[in-house]
């Protein structure tokens, strides 16, 4: 399964993502953001970092990078598209996911492991997990506070498209266990079709014992398991 790991100027997690995906048997390839053709890829990852320096707003300039036309076509065609951290912000700016990210509630850059509760297994983000499972993954962001217009939130919640919520080790999700003020403790969501999904924490940084947690593997395994090989062009 060929996975395009997209690099924008300022992306800094592409090698970690590619390494973790390769360990799971996928064939990741780094793709520069000026590329306009992603034909032949079975999945797309927008990794973390600070695309285009986060200037203007996080993801605002990346969303118009030449590669994004191809990402949008893949998303519409049902190809799994995974956003991690900055990738989540870019997918929101591109309108492929609802809502937006703003500064953390306490105006601090958060860089520590957090707990996440699996809310639904209906997307390519969590299909290998079980509902109620608690994962421990590193969070590494300043703009990780998810907000959305009320109507979008109602749709997200009623359609079961909130995949992951911040919680404590026991799985309790409330304001006290919410690290960044994210609305409804939202840490990961999916689109209506379930093939575009994103999370703020970094599964690739929790993919091996030596990293302190292997909980990220279930997210990346879900993504890899969702890919269907594209037929070779005739």
């Amino acid at each position: 399964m060929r996975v395009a790991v997209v690099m924008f100027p300022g992306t800094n997690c592409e090698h970690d993502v590619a390494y973790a995906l390769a360990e799971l048997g996928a064939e990741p390839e780094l793709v520069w953001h000026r590329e306009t053709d992603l034909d032949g890829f079975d999945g797309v990852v927008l990794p973390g970092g600070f695309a285009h320096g986060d200037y203007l707003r996080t993801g605002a300039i990346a969303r118009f990078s030449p590669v994004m036309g191809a990402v949008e076509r893949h998303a519409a065609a049902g190809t799994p598209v995974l956003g991690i951290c900055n990738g989540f912000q870019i997918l929101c700016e591109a309108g492929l996911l609802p809502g937006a990210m703003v500064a953390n509630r306490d105006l601090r850059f958060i860089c520590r492991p957090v707990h996440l509760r699996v809310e639904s297994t209906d997307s390519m983000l969590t299909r290998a997990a079980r509902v109620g499972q608690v994962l421990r993954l590193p969070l590494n962001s300043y703009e990780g506070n998810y907000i959305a217009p009320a109507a979008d939130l109602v749709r997200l919640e009623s359609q079961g498209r909130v995949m992951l919520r911040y919680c404590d080790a026991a799985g309790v999700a409330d304001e006290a266990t919410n690290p960044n003020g994210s609305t409804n403790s939202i840490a990961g969501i999916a689109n209506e079709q379930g093939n575009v999904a994103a999370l703020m924490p970094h599964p690739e940084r929790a993919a091996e014992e030596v990293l302190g947690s292997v909980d990220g593997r279930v997210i990346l395994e879900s993504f890899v398991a969702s890919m269907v090989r594209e037929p070779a062009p005739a």
Partner: protein
Amino acid sequence: MKRLRIDIRRKEGLSDPEGVATLRALHDLGYAEVDEVHFGRMIYLDLPDGGAAETGKRVEEMCRRLLANPVIENWTVETVE
């Protein structure tokens, strides 16, 4: 040449963590009369004179597509010089 000032603000009712933190600091300093603080962003665009109708339409489009995020922000455009 004319200069346009674009004033971009978070929509009312949506979370504004910088505004809330600054309001708290103002209250701590004794400025209890302040009810709310809203943060925004100011962007200046320099454009050649003339073509007013077309310019207005295009600047609105620039705001909607790139300069602001219509999901969470409102904006106003003013000519300043």
